[in-house]
């Protein structure tokens, strides 16, 4: 039963992802990207990771996609221009992607996990969010703190790049 749902979600995700890159209208692409990301969130739920699923919906489907749509709206992307630029590379891209998925699929099917699965069995993962929170603030405290510096750097960078443009080249 679970497998059936997984294949349904996976198939919709792949199809909508193809729609994202093949549709001519940027808004349609963005909407299909939302569909794709929602399917990924559903897969997370199947994997007993409700926290990741919620984050996926909040951040990607919510925040990131709103920005995408804003960018599309502000830039007013011409559909024809987009087609010229991107679709001329379609042939080689299909070949490369097909080759990549063949190789990756082969390796993924053949590979196996040699290590023990660790302390997180299904019972422990029932409290998934608690487990993540706990490990973020114990085991992963250092990278977690570094991320705050990363965000600060990104924030300053965004301000630097945008405010210069507004000042007419800063001269």
């Amino acid at each position, binding site marked *: 039963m679970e497998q059936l749902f997984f294949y349904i979600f996976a198939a919709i995700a792949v199809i909508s992802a193809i729609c994202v890159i093949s549709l001519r209208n940027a808004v349609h692409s963005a909407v299909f990207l939302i569909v794709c990301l929602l399917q990924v969130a559903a897969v997370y739920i199947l994997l007993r990771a409700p926290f990741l699923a919620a984050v996926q919906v909040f951040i990607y489907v919510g925040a990131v996609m709103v920005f995408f749509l804003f960018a599309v709206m502000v830039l007013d992307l011409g559909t024809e221009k987009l087609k010229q630029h991107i679709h001329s590379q379609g042939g080689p891209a299909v070949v490369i992607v097909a080759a990549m998925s063949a190789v990756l699929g082969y390796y993924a099917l053949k*590979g196996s996990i040699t*290590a023990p699965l660790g302390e997180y069995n299904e019972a422990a993962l029932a409290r998934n969010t608690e487990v993540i929170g706990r490990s973020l603030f114990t085991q992963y405290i*250092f*990278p977690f703190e*570094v991320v705050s*510096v*990363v965000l600060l750097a990104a924030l300053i960078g965004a301000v630097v*790049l945008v405010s210069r443009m507004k000042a007419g080249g800063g001269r």
Partner: protein
Amino acid sequence: MTLNDLNINLASVLPQLLVTGLGLLVLVLDLFLDKKSKAALGYVSIAGLLVILPIAFVTVSPEASFGKMVMADPFSAFFNVVFIIAALFSVLISMDYLKKVNVQRGEYYCIMLFATVGMMIMASAADLINLYVGLELMALSFYVLVAYRVDERRSVEGALKYFVLGALSSGVLLYGISYVYGFSGSTNLAQIARYAVNGAGGNPFLSLGIALIAIGFCFKIAAFPFHMWAPDAYEGAPTPVTAFLSVGSKAAAFAAFLRVFITAFSGVRPQWSGLIWTLSAATMVFGSVVAISQKNIVRMLAYSSIAHAGIIMIGLLTYDTAGASSVMYYLLVYAFMNMGAFTVVALFIRDGGAGESISDYKGLAARRPGIAFLMSLFLLALAGIPPTGGFTAKFFILASAIDAHYYWLAVIGVLATAISLFFYLKVIFYMYMKEPDDYQQPLPEADFTYNVALLAAAAGTLILGIYPAPFVDMAMEAIKPFFNFLAF
């Protein structure tokens, strides 16, 4: 996990904390300065970095801290010193340069310090997650720095290429990390090493993970065929940023490369040695051949830096203390000689792209004999001519390749060095043998900051060439635990 198991040891990350603090201090001070006096922030950064340099050198703790995430061993201390030296030079030549191209914003120094923190975190990471976070901090800072001349078309173009390909390479690296995690159930390097032993060599998860992680790093060191971003980003970025990118970013990626591949993937070495061999040989040949036809000195130095990456990669293969320590030594020397060459380039570049062509260096010896002499010194060092540090570094790497029976790779390395002589000597030939096109063209005066940077770089290049022993010993001592760790 109890608090004691975590081993929260702030002393082990003291250099990272101090540089972050310095960055924040610069950020706040920026608010109190008007546009004319932003260079003061450069002096604050330099003073801070000079204080942190000895602290970074002695910050060593034997135990992994923060839940085995951070390893403040002599290896990371060595690289921290390299990063701080690179940052010092870059800030030093930035102050006048920014005035020249008329982008005076205080955030520049803050972002540069954050990039340094990212590099330090990469070098001390004992866990793939920590490594990735450090890499992103460095990369994000560099995306902004490369685009810093927003009004210059080439700067934006280079930054965009760097950003898109950098994001792609981060994705590739993460994909590789997730496969390795799938294989070993852990992102901790020591934990991975426990499972990546001989018998596991055939596991597809592991091979795929290793290949993808290697590709991710190769993007950052600009190895062929993952170098596409480098010439454009180097050309478009402000010259001090280019210098920092070619020295610091490369050293950080090599530090991560060494630590990950020697500690975690040593058990399955036959799996990746072929890949690294091919990439190294291709990078050396490609970099030196393409550099010949370059007319722009920054692009020439970009391809030369690609060729250097290929030669340094030899040291990853030999897999002994000699090879690995010569990688570290090479990166230290490279910091000095490359920074020296870029200092001269930064001095002669004028706003709007003038002074970037190699033909602008015609007859420099007659007009600026001192600077022409130093430029020749740096170029000869990059080419690997004794008695400079460039020669000793190349010598150690190639000698370790021969000791490890990589004869063909050593031959290719020597050939690439011979080819590279051609384009380095071309600049020297232009400076000494040609008449300048235009005597009237005013040359910029080297002010105090340039003189300090030039003399320090020259001193470093020469001392490392004439008296390498203590520095090589330091690198040897630093890398030894990696191989001891394998014994048990």
